[in-house]
């Protein structure tokens, strides 16, 4: 990703908007008693489009802001979202995204990874939580939501950062030359 001041401002605005929307809207709505989590989707999209470093730095920054707004111990969400962004970016650097369904599928997978990561951090800092069928169901439903929200989020991030994306595999159909008088 080519970072110009303009792109940097867009990135910062995107992350602030995503965190604000997460804590004031997505975390406070529920379908089938489960709230969507769009932050892993946004961070994974940034990783898939910008590479591992962009994903990791964006994830770390989003995590710090999230922890500040939640008045939670700093660093927990950062580690999880940084790992999510880094893994998404690594995937982008090693494989080519050929199918339209691949980004939402990957985003769903990375959201599941982030949910497991949140759990691991909670266990690491000594919170007594039990993995139950209910928690597993919630994590899977969150991943399903991420699949459906992943496509518009991926396209939105792609549109926002289009000038900065280096390798954008695009298949353009060549127009046949028009032969006059043929």
């Amino acid at each position, binding site marked *: 990703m080519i970072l110009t001041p303009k792109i940097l401002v867009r990135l910062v605005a995107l992350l602030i908007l995503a965190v*604000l929307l997460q804590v004031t809207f997505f975390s406070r709505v529920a379908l089938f008693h489960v709230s969507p989590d769009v932050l892993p989707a946004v961070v994974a999209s940034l990783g898939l489009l910008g590479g591992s470093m962009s994903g*990791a730095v964006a994830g770390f920054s989003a995590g710090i802001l999230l922890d500040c707004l939640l008045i939670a111990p700093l*660093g927990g969400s950062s580690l999880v979202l940084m790992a999510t962004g880094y893994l998404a970016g690594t995937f982008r650097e090693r494989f080519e995204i050929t199918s339209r369904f691949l980004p939402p599928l990957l985003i769903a997978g990375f959201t599941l990874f982030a949910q497991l990561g949140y759990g691991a951090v909670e266990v690491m800092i000594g919170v007594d939580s039990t993995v139950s069928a209910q928690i597993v169901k919630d994590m899977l439903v969150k991943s399903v939501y991420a699949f459906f929200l992943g496509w518009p989020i991926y396209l939105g991030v792609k549109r926002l950062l289009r000038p900065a994306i280096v390798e954008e595999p695009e298949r353009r159909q060549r127009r046949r030359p028009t032969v006059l008088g043929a």
Partner: protein
Amino acid sequence: MYRKQVRRRRAVLALLVIGGFVLLTVTYGRGSTSLQEGVSAVFSPLETAADRALKPARDLVNWFDKTFDARGENSQLKAELEATRAQAVGGEAAIAENRELRKLLELDEGGTIPGGYTPVTGRVVVRAPTEWTADVVIDVGSGDGVAVEDPVVNGDGLVGKVTAVAGGSAKVTLITDSSSAVSARVVPGNSQGVIKPSLGEPGSLTLDFIKSSKLIGRNRIVVTAGWSSGDISSGFPPNLPIGEVTEASVVEQEAQQQVHVRPFADLRNLNFLQVLTGGWRE
């Protein structure tokens, strides 16, 4: 050139990982840091504006959720209504008895909130995105007299307690959080125990340490016990409603009852909360 780039990337990644762990170690258990207070002060107006602007959209999505729920609950509620009608007659007599007893004990008849507490009303502006913790952030903080450990209620009953506080905001850890434990008693009957979240069932509670000899019936009310012993006392005042008993079963091996409690407060849809400031600190 390529090797240099790889080294730089590895260094950045290592810095981020180490930074994350250092921050976690330094800030864990400290409540709020100056960075969080600064960010909270800057973003507080934005959060409030976003909270108000997005309320109609939130209500719409939650309406779908409640509609799905309502279909399943409809038949169950009809049966419960029949039973409640039958109980209502007996309830009138119980209310009259209760009034007399309250007069005898010279308790404040109208007030659920005991004297000495000053309620501070705040609006929920932020909710944690993960199911692993049950926290919300409200838009009142130390500037409004809110302090860590203050109990928090809404119109239906006990919601939780303040676990971190900044100048204009405070984190409320809900009673369904895995770290929560509230001393409680069942009325009528006065059986005392500790209300904890039911492990593996987000949103429901379990009343522990109830002897199997004192059988607890369904629909009994659970309130805060609000004990005190010398200079030490519970952070929660007595008689704040918590929830109602939905099921009680005897665990043979432990000679205790497993009492499941449904909280009165709808902890997924919290808007306005009241922090009971003062009380236990004075």
